[in-house]
């Protein structure tokens, strides 16, 4: 488990390094994820060296969001002031994004 954490946190730390060095406007976690994929692909890291910990983290991803969701209470005031546009626009647009992404993907696959 310690080795697995070392690899995962190593990728995250490298992601932080990339952000710090380049000032790129992407989160270190996303860069770390792409790095981990790359390291697995070039066989620098073997699947069994990260799989256990990675599965544990991925399966519980939702739980790690609870504090952020609780922090919503801080913004009730801003949201309350213009709640109709905020709620309607976000909800409708979220449905549109899902439908458009899915449809276009299915459509392009059919024709390519």
């Amino acid at each position, binding site marked *: 488990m310690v080795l697995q954490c070392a690899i995962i946190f190593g990728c995250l730390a490298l992601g932080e390094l990339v952000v710090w060095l380049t000032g790129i406007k992407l989160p270190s976690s996303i860069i770390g*994820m792409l790095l981990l994929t790359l390291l697995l692909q070039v066989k620098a890291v073997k699947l069994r060296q990260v799989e256990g910990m990675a599965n544990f983290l991925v399966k519980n991803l939702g739980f790690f969001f609870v504090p952020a969701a609780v922090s919503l209470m801080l913004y009730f005031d801003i949201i309350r002031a213009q709640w109709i546009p905020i709620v309607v626009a976000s909800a409708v647009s979220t449905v549109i994004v899902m439908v458009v992404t899915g449809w276009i993907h299915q459509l392009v696959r059919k024709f390519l």
Partner: protein
Amino acid sequence: MEYLSNTYFLLALTFAIYAASQILQSRTGWSFLNPILISAILIIAYLNVNDISIDTYNEGGRYIEFWLKPAIVALGVPLYKQLSTIRKQLLPLLISELAGCVVGIISVVLIARLLGATQEVVMSLAAKSVTTPIAMEVTKAVGGIPPLTAAVVVSVGIFGGLTGFRVMRMTRIGSPIAQGLSLGTAAHAVGTSRAMDVSDKYGAFASLGLTLNGIFTALLTPTVLSLLD
């Protein structure tokens, strides 16, 4: 009662409420019993009733939130497992992502404007589909209110996770790849965790959707917004 705001008690409470809502959701099969949503509602209610501040809650809460970044890194594993499929369909994936990203920005901006939101609020909504750190950076860049974006992003994730499979059933989005991709694109990591509940393959394409939409949104939002003005 000072004990009610004890860090470890609040952590235990969070674990217990989340576990209980997971059990409740799997027993009943009701998707609106989303564990993140139920936990947030119950914990906010608990904090309000006992007059405990969010800062006090986060003394323990940050240890949970801490795992969010490594968990996103860990999404590299399912992504790696699907790499050969991704390579085979690179073009459909990129095209649908690009469409989802642009349509997402345009639709949220136009609807919010139509309903009378102020310019600052409109700018805060533009990046609502992507993961919080990217969304907040984009909001800063386009002149919105970053905390409002953070709040909207989490809500969008919960909403997308909650409604995603029903919406896709109704709109005949059937292929596992399209479903996973759409969930990650529209509802970032919360949608991805919902996709992971179904299978690794769904989860892998959801992480791809979350990544690509994050990158596209970071790169394209300022341009798309200037075209809408």
